[in-house]
C-alpha cells in the first residue's frame, strides 16, 4: 500500500465530532448507533487513553493521569480509585500519588470504585474510570511479568536474549564493546535438597537482589535458568568484569549470604559478535572453571 492510499484510508476512517458510530452487537443482532458526544459517553477518558498510548504504554501512570483529568473536569479536591486485582489484592490510588491514610480508608472501605470529593461524578462515569484503571494495572503487570523473572524481579531469559541480540548487533555495527557474563551458583542443588525449596528460593531471591545492585545503570541482569544468571556489562572489556564480581560478592556478603558462584565471560567484538557464539564461549569458560566438561 502506498502513502497516498494510506492517507486516503485514514481520511476515510476519521470520525467527525457528531458522526454516528456503528456499534456491532456481539451476538450478531442488528447494529446500533451511538453518538460520540452522547450524554453517557466519556470521550475525555478515551482521549486520555489515546494520548497516553501515543506517548507510552498504559500502566500505573495512566491511573494517576485519569484521576488528575477527573479532578480537573469536576473541580475535585480529592479522588481515590480502589481496584480489586487477582495478583495484588485490593489496591488504592489517590489523586497526585498521595498516601491513603486511615481516615480516607474509613470513607472508601474495601469496595472497588472511584471515590470523589465532592461526590459529583456520576456512577456510570466512575465505573468507566474504574474499568480503565483496572485495565491499566493489568496491562502493566502483564508487561512486567512478560519480561521479568517472577522470583527475582530481574529480566527473564526472553528479555535477556533480546537485550543480547541488540547489544551484539550494535557491537558488530559500531564496534561497541560489551561483556557477557554467565553465572552459575555452586552447589545450589545441595541447598535445595538439604534445606528445602523455600530456602532455595530465598537464596535465589537474595542473589538476584545483589545482582541488581551490582550492575550499573545500562547493564542488564537476568535469571536465565534455575540457578543460572547472566549479565550484559555495557561498554566493558572482559577484564572490567572483575569490578562487577567484586561488587556482587560485597553485596552478597553484606546481606549475610555466603553462596559461592562461578562465572564465565565472553567479550564482543573481540570473541565474537554472534549472540549464540558468545553464549557458547562464556558457557565453555564457565564449565572449564568448574572443572566440568561442557557439551
Amino acid at each position, binding site marked *: 500500500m502506498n502513502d497516498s492510499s494510506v492517507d486516503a484510508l485514514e481520511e476515510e476512517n476519521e470520525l467527525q465530532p457528531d458522526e454516528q458510530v456503528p*456499534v456491532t*452487537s*456481539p*451476538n450478531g443482532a442488528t447494529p446500533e448507533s451511538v453518538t460520540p458526544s452522547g450524554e*453517557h*459517553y466519556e470521550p475525555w477518558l478515551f482521549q486520555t487513553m489515546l494520548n*497516553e498510548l501515543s*506517548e*507510552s504504554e498504559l*500502566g*500505573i*501512570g495512566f491511573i*494517576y*493521569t485519569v484521576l488528575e483529568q477527573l479532578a480537573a473536569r469536576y473541580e475535585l479536591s480529592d479522588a481515590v480509585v480502589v481496584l480489586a486485582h*487477582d*495478583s*495484588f*489484592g*485490593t*489496591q*488504592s*490510588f*489517590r489523586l497526585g*500519588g*498521595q*498516601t*491513603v*491514610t*486511615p481516615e480516607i*480508608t*474509613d470513607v472508601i*472501605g*474495601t*469496595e*472497588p*470504585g472511584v471515590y470523589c470529593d465532592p461526590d459529583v461524578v456520576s*456512577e*456510570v462515569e466512575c*465505573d*468507566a474510570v474504574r*474499568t*480503565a484503571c*483496572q*485495565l491499566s494495572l*493489568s*496491562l*502493566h*503487570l*502483564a508487561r*512486567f511479568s512478560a519480561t521479568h523473572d517472577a522470583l527475582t*524481579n530481574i529480566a527473564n531469559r526472553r528479555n535477556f536474549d533480546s537485550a543480547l541480540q541488540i547489544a551484539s548487533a550494535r557491537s558488530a555495527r559500531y564496534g561497541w564493546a560489551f561483556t557477557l557474563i554467565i553465572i552459575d551458583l555452586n552447589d545450589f542443588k545441595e541447598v535445595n535438597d538439604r534445606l528445602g525449596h523455600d530456602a532455595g528460593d530465598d537464596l535465589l531471591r537474595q542473589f538476584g*537482589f545483589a545482582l*541488581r*545492585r551490582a550492575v550499573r545503570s545500562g547493564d542488564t541482569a537476568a535469571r536465565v535458568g534455575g540457578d543460572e544468571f547472566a549479565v550484559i556489562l555495557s561498554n566493558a572489556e572482559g577484564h572490567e568484569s572483575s569490578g562487577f564480581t567484586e561488587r556482587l560478592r560485597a553485596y552478597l556478603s553484606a546481606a549475610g549470604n555466603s553462596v559461592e558462584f562461578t562465572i564465565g565471560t565472553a567479550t564482543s567484538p573481540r570473541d565474537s559478535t554472534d549472540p549464540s557464539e558468545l553464549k557458547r564461549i562464556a558457557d565453555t569458560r564457565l564449565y572449564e572453571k568448574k572443572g566440568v566438561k561442557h557439551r
Partner: protein
Amino acid sequence: MMSRTEEDFELELRSLPGVMNVGISHRDNGDVDVVTLFVSGQDSTQTRNAASQIGTLYYPDAVVIVDDAKTAMAPREGEGPRVALVRADFNATDGVCEVQLSYAGRPGVGRAGSGPLIGGAEATLAALRDLGFAVPFSLMAVVNVATVNNWPVIVTLRSLADDAYRFGIAESDEDLVSAARATLDALNRFLSGLEDHG
C-alpha cells in the same frame, strides 16, 4: 507523566504482600523523596525491609515509611448477601456455557451457546434472571485484551432504562470465568442496590 522507572518501582512495591497503597512525594528537582506504604494484615517490619531494599535499587536516597492499616480496611459492617459465582463450565462439544451463581443460598443457573466469552456473559445474565432478578441490561460487547489466558476480559452492558453503558473487567485462567466475573463486575452497583432490598 510518571517515568517508566517510577511506574515499575511502584508496581514492585504494590506486589509486596499486604501493600494496599503507595504514596510517593518528590523533591523540587523531581527526585523521589519519601515513599509511604499502606499495609494491611502483614508484618510491617518485613514489608518495610523489603520495600527499603527495592528503594535502594531505584532511588537510594528515598525514605520509606510503612503505615500499618490495622483494621482500617476491614469490610464494612452490615453488608448483605452477595451474588457469587459458583461454577462456570464450557462444553466444547455443543458449544454451550453454563454459569451457576448463588445468592443468599439460592442457586441460579444460566446457559448460552455463543462460546466462552460472549456465552459466559450471556449465561451470567441468564443465571441472574434465574435467581429471580429483573436485569434491565443488554449485552453490548465482550472483549479479551489479548488472545492468551490471564488477560483481562472487558464486558460492556447497556442499561435499558437510561441507555448508559456499564463496564466490567476481570481476569482469570479461563475466558469463560473472566467473562462471567466481568459481567458481575459491570453490574456491581445494580446488584448492590438489589441486595440492599434483598
